[in-house]
Every structure is written in structure tokens, then in C-alpha cells.
């Protein structure tokens, strides 16, 4: 059935050819960057009632934020310092939230202007937790700081909870070397799979 000269071998070679094409196009053209920017949507920097920073990547074993998590945090602190919102909201796993709070405080954000949203494991749980924490504070309009590829799913979940979401994508131009572009392409595939999964489950 799968003789090396039969249809099985031809199919596997065709898959191999497609894989090679994806590697070349993904690594040596701006395809990943274009998809990345498209998923992020336009930057909508405007005053809001809170700056929301969902989790991404957590912390390394030494409790230092991962690159992406740190980028988001720094971008959010920058927006806070421009007085775009009086409240900075960090969610994610416990260690990530704590490390973000420490970083924000060290950058001059008063502790009482930070909401630490502990306890959510998934994007859906984050949206539910943010709803629970921010509604009593009268927050309805949020500035969402996330990687471009994470924007569609997070934005849709928050909008479904009734929030008005302004997007402030971090790292929107994407990487500039082949290896990082391929890595981004893999992340895009992962995120699109998650998007489809959420749609199929009826969560968005």
C-alpha cells in the first residue's frame, strides 16, 4: 500500500515539498510579519478606564519575565505613564503577575493603581476573571496590550463580556531574521488553532 514507488510515497513527497516551501517562504519573506500585523489590527491608543495586560509566557525559573511578557509589561507601563488610564491590570499565572507587579512598581507605578488578576490559566478564564474584577470598579473601556497574534481571541472574549476594547499591540512589526519569522509562523499556527477551537466550543 505504501510502497516507495506508489501513491503513498508521492503523497509524502508532496507533503515534503509543501513543508520545504513553507520553510523558505516563512523564513525568507515577510509573510509571518504581514499575518502578525494583520492579526494585531490597528493601534487604537486612546484614553480608557484600564490598561489590561493578559499573560504570555509566564516567568523563567529565576522568576524573571519572559521576553514577550516583559515587552507587554513595559509597553503597558509606558501607556500608563502617558496617563491613558488610571489603572494597570496584569493577569496570567501567579509568578508572572507578581513579577509584572514588581517591575511596574520599580518603574514608578503606584501599587494602588495596579490590579493583580491571579488565578486564570486560559484566555477564557482571564476574560472571566477580568470581568469579575473590573466590573465593580466601573471599568467598561479597556486598552488591551497583547502580542498581535493574541489580539483577535482576547479582544473577542473581552468584547463578549461587554468591554469596549482598544487595541495596543506590542511588537507589531514582528521579527527580522529567518529563524524568528519561522518561530512566529509556528506561533501563528498555534494561535489560529486556538481561535478555531474557541469558535467551535462557542466561547466567542
Amino acid at each position: 500500500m505504501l510502497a516507495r514507488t506508489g501513491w503513498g510515497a508521492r503523497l509524502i513527497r508532496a507533503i515534503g515539498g509543501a513543508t520545504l516551501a513553507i520553510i523558505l517562504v516563512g523564513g525568507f519573506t515577510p509573510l509571518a510579519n504581514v499575518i502578525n500585523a494583520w492579526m494585531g489590527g490597528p493601534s487604537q491608543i486612546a484614553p480608557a478606564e484600564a490598561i489590561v495586560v493578559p499573560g504570555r509566557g509566564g516567568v523563567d525559573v529565576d522568576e524573571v519575565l519572559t521576553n514577550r511578557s516583559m515587552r507587554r509589561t513595559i509597553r503597558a507601563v509606558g501607556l500608563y505613564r502617558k496617563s491613558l488610564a488610571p489603572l494597570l491590570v496584569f493577569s496570567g499565572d501567579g509568578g508572572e503577575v507578581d513579577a509584572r507587579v514588581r517591575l511596574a512598581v520599580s518603574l514608578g507605578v503606584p501599587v494602588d493603581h495596579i490590579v493583580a488578576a491571579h488565578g486564570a490559566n486560559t484566555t477564557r478564564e482571564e476574560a472571566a476573571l477580568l470581568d469579575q474584577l473590573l466590573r465593580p470598579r466601573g471599568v467598561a473601556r479597556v486598552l488591551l496590550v497583547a502580542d498581535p497574534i493574541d489580539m483577535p481571541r482576547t479582544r473577542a472574549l473581552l468584547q463578549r463580556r461587554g468591554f469596549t476594547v482598544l487595541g495596543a499591540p506590542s511588537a507589531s512589526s514582528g521579527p527580522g531574521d529567518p529563524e524568528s519569522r519561522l518561530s512566529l509562523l509556528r506561533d501563528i499556527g498555534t494561535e489560529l488553532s486556538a481561535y478555531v477551537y474557541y469558535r467551535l466550543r462557542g466561547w466567542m
Partner: protein
Amino acid sequence: MFDMDPQELLLPSLVVVTSLVAYLVGRRLLRLPRARLRRAAARALEALGLLMLFGVVNVGLGIAFVLAYRGITGEFLSFYLLNDAVLGILSLVQALIFQWWWARPD
């Protein structure tokens, strides 16, 4: 629209040059027949195809495992554990072993 940094031509250029050198070594020094080059390219595509198949099956099985783990234990296990380049490398090893096992001796 497509502003490619000229520095990015370095990697493909290196590969083109070393491929040409390897071709010359094969043809002139090792006296390898040209027809076998075509077969070698087909085998390389087979290896990549098998890599993709093993990768997809490994990730699919991983997703099923994560869902089952969450359902059975009620504890959280992240899908992002599967988004790891090491799984790609291990899939490549699987693909190569399977391909060599599958290959007819010439």
C-alpha cells in the same frame, strides 16, 4: 511592499555556494551519476514529508492527552507545552529512522 534586507541574502547564498561545491565534488571527485541526485532530492522530500506527518500526529496526540488529562483530573495542563521546537527535532529523528527503515536497499 517586499523590502528585503540585502543582508538576508547571506544565508541562502551560503547554501547555494556549498550546494554547488558539493555537486562538483560528487560529479568530479566521486564520479556520482546525475540520476542519483534526483533520487536523493526525492528522498529528502520524503524525509520532510514524514517529519510533517510525525509532527502532526505527535501534536494531535498531545492535544488529546491534554484534553483527557483536564477531563479526568480536573487539573490544568497547558496546550502551549506542545508548542516546543524540541518536539519538531524529535519528530525529525522519528522521520529519519522510519524513512531508512522504509527505504529499499539499492
